[in-house]
């Protein structure tokens, strides 16, 4: 039996009669990257919201390292190692880069929060900007800072909601390399929602495809890319 670090079973989020997500099942193994793709409005971000506790489950169960965390709030899930970044850059604009990352590390209960903050900032090439105020950074740097805030305390699972949005091709490739490296060196498992298909198919171990709140395909990148239904629903014939 596979030991999943994260398991979502029969997850549903309904808004009245609207089924934003319905009956979704997902798993993540240690060090695995699972790409989530699908058209806008397919429910990808809602699934991340459901797993992290930002939205209450209508039905289903979320298990982290064997513990049912479905009833826990955002803070409790984060403390247990479930971390995320946001579609829109979500940082503390008026704080310096170092102060916010060190604070986040401290709140995660890291004994040497200063060393942890330095390690994360160095890993993401932000250490030289540690004294800059976040709002003065360039967009790409802010996206990396967003990721740094999600990485402090060495989370077990990282849920990334379109981390490449708005980045240049080079910045996207750099970030993709960072993510791939993190899964092996830091033992982080990643659930990646992304529209950049080159990135998703390039770094994911498995890919799950959403349409109208349901999973329509799941498997290794080559199989998913070749799936006729996926090509019809999302990738198009040119993919």
């Amino acid at each position, binding site marked *: 039996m596979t030991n999943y670090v994260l398991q979502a079973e029969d997850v549903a989020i309904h808004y009245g009669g609207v089924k934003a997500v319905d009956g979704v099942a997902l798993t993540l193994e240690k060090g695995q990257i699972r790409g989530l793709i699908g058209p806008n409005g397919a429910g990808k971000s809602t699934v991340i919201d459901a797993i992290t506790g930002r939205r209450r489950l209508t039905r289903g169960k979320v298990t982290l390292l064997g513990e049912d965390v479905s009833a826990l709030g955002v803070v409790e899930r*984060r403390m247990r190692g479930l971390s995320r970044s946001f579609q829109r850059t979500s940082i503390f*604009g008026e704080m310096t880069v170092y102060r916010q990352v060190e604070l986040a590390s401290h709140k995660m209960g890291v004994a040497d929060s200063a060393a942890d903050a330095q390690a994360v900032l160095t890993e993401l090439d932000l250490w030289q900007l540690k004294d800059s105020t976040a709002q003065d950074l360039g967009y790409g740097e802010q996206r990396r800072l967003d990721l740094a805030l999600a990485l402090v305390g060495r989370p077990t699972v990282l849920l990334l909601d379109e981390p490449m949005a708005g980045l240049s091709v080079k910045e996207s490739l750099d970030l993709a390399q960072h993510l791939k490296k993190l899964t092996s060196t830091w033992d982080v498992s990643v659930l990646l929602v992304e529209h950049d298909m080159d990135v998703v198919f390039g770094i994911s171990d498995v890919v799950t495809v959403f349409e109208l709140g349901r999973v329509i395909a799941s498997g290794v990148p080559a199989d998913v890319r070749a799936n006729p239904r996926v090509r019809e629903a999302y990738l198009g014939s040119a993919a």
Partner: protein
Amino acid sequence: MNFQKSLLSAVLALVLGGVLTMVVSSGTVLSLLTQAIIYAVFALGVGVLLKQNGMVSFGHALFFGGASYLVGIVLQLQLMSAELAILAALAVVTLAAFLIGLVIVRVPGVAFGMLTLAIGQMFFLTASRARGLTGGADGMNIDWPSRLFGFPLSQMLKPASMFLICWSTLVVVMFLLAWLMRTRFGGITEAVRDNEERARFIGITTLWPRAAVYALSALVTSVAGVLSALNTGFVSPESLHWSLSGVALMMVVVGGFKALWGPAAGAVVYFLFKDILGEHATHWMTIFGVALITVIVFSPTGVAGLFDRWVLGKKPSVKVGGH
């Protein structure tokens, strides 16, 4: 600014206060300055709430007048010594504000402001009608003893002494706040203010820090209330009225809230306007209102913001990062 620099600035400010009492010989001017400093402490309390929580209160007069009333009532009933009465008043106001804060800081934006207004006015009406305890609309005299903290009250109430007491209190409060903002607590409250959702996703429970800042701002405001009670020896329901909260808010807007000293500068500007314009125009508030609109339109960061840009050459910041 690091701790040593803040400490040095505080010491220099204390010396400056001493020099001022030697240079300014007019008791009237010193009394006016004292009043301005008391309101500077009041505005500082309102400013802390805006700076650290990003919240606007229209009801902080509750803590200003509330502290004065508490001291007055305790002394009238002879429940404890004046020194203990002061400490008790500060503690009660802070605790009450924390408990109120736990409920109302959950409400964002204008609704929060309206709640503070409603709570403040509730106490204003209570004080106005509880004639037996508060003297009703006529207010009450505060029965200070002849000695306070070992000093003769008659000496303390002299214009120069009173100015020095209020000035020193302002400097110490500002220094303590500056220190607090640099601690972990300051970082947490900044994070919650900047981006509450992200704060939760780095493990911060956001309600407690917001309530704590509300209580802290109430504590600072209540210090001003105690100083006012000492300075005038009198308290009336007007000190609880929303219009007084509005005046403090005007001071914060004029002075700017990004820097700790901004609200204090706003209080000084307000009293200068009041004194200078008041001599020439009955409706001086109209002119001040025009000045207020000018500041809001052309320098939303107030006097402190202008100082940053013109003297320190800082660029205005761009807001990013929230949801």
